[in-house]
């Protein structure tokens, strides 16, 4: 009787857990459904070829062009800058905290880093515009007041704690025995970290990178404030540009009449962003699977 009960309990728990996991599928269906309807309407009016190949994005102007490329370029550029800042700094900090720092230092610094992630991004936006941009302008003459560089760097600073903290967790979980094995061969701390701990913690580190990158792709307020709002097909980080997300808030907050083609652009833009992150994530998912090293 007790066993019967236990069996049923186990099944129920498994069922509930399964439903929780399945819930994520519903979320995705929800997102796709919400985006799809308006996007469908959008593509009734705008050819998908124009959308993908036109090099201008001017839906809010009188002469309308619906080429998503400039927005992609903006997103791509700011993201690249952000991860160029965040990945090295995050990984180095993580290695330092996990392998070099004293336990006391780690327990003091880690929460401090985590607070960095909590500062509202609006604040970072103004930090980029009013603090970082003027400094950069002194270093780089001809840097426009709005540009990709400054918000890119600040975004990098913002996602660094995510990368650092999660990577540090993964490294912390690597068994002590592995480190001992390497130290006993005369490895320096750095060699232990770089050649044993980091590879052993690779899956966790990769996960933190992916989270960081996707945050950069999806970051909105910083670029909306500090990058300017000029869709531009360029990879020059010194001029104003616009990202997909910045465009979406711009219209969400703006005066565009609902139901018009201009309004539907945000769903088309949102859908493209979704598709791109989807593809990116699937690629990184497989990469992660491939490189993952299991240890006990």
């Amino acid at each position, binding site marked *: 009787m007790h066993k019967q009960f236990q069996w049923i309990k186990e099944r129920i728990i498994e069922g509930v857990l399964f439903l929780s996991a399945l819930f994520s599928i519903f979320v995705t269906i929800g997102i796709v459904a919400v985006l799809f309807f308006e996007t469908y309407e959008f593509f009734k009016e705008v050819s998908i070829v124009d959308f993908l190949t036109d090099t201008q994005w001017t839906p809010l102007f009188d002469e309308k062009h619906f080429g998503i490329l400039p927005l992609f370029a903006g997103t791509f550029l700011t993201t690249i800058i952000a991860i160029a800042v965040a990945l090295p700094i995050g990984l180095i900090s993580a290695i330092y905290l996990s392998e070099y720092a*004293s336990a006391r230092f780690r327990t003091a610094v880690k929460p401090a880093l985590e607070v960095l992630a909590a500062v509202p991004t609006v604040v970072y936006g103004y930090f980029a515009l009013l603090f970082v941009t003027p400094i950069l302008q002194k270093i780089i003459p001809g840097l426009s007041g709005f540009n990709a560089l400054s918000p890119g760097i600040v975004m990098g600073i913002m996602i660094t704690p995510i990368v650092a903290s999660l990577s540090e967790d993964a490294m912390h979980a690597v068994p002590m025995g592995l*480190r001992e094995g390497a*130290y006993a061969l005369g490895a320096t701390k750095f060699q232990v970290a770089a050649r044993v701990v980091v590879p052993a913690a690779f899956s966790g580190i990769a996960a933190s990178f992916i989270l960081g990158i996707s945050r950069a792709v999806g970051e909105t307020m910083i670029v909306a404030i500090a990058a300017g709002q000029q869709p531009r097909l360029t990879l020059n980080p010194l001029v104003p540009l616009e990202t997909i997300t910045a465009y979406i808030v711009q219209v969400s907050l703006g005066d565009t009449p609902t139901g018009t083609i201009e309004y539907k652009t945000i769903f088309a833009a949102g859908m493209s962003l979704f598709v791109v992150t989807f593809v990116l994530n699937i690629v990184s998912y497989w990469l992660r699977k491939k490189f993952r090293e*299991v240890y006990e």
Partner: protein
Amino acid sequence: METSFRISKLSAYYGPKEAVRNVNMEISKKSVTAVIGPSGCGKSTFIRCLNRMNDLVTGFHIKGEILYDGKDIYSDDSDVIDVRRRIGMVFQKPNPFPKSIYENIVYGLRIQGINKKDILDKTVEESLNKAALWEEVKDRLHTSALQLSGGQQQRLCIARAIATQPEVILFDEPCSALDPIATAKIEDLITELKKEYTVIIVTHNMQQAARVSEHTGFFMLGELIEFDTTQKIFTTPSNKMTEDYITGRFG
């Protein structure tokens, strides 16, 4: 015989807890020294002092002095990396890196900047041969070391330690996960090694100590009760406790 380690008044602490107390000992070069004693008596702690492995444990500290080749390995100008490179170690629990068998072996060389393929290949074969593992793994050198059985893993760790040709090799119960055949091979290997290297081996197997070592130290409750030639320890120990332990009379 030349002296390798000269240990004086060594005490070792985990925070406030004393794990090794006031040990004095002299270890000869190119010989095998065994360390025996009941579980928890501080054997591992002691041997890990010799290559400063315990530096990694927070709160750990020692008192006393350990001279290696006449130099204090705990002095400020002693280089811990160098100490560990010259004094290799094999652990109680096998700890292969989550990499291929090949990469496990060559790790010690790579960190010294040696990357020539022919040298590495040669080292891998030699070390695995010495560790009596070559035959079993030669077809799968590039598969993960984690798929080996416990015994195979331990032999791999031994091969890894040999690969860098240290001056001293510390073994912390290297055979506790091995079957008798592999154990015999390792014992042969140790006998072979002492021609060139100084070997210190912690073991719970008294027969093993008797078979391979020239000198034996008997530890109990953190203290070195008796240290003498193996022959003397196993035939005419001067201390009652040693005798009781050897003959399996106490515990």
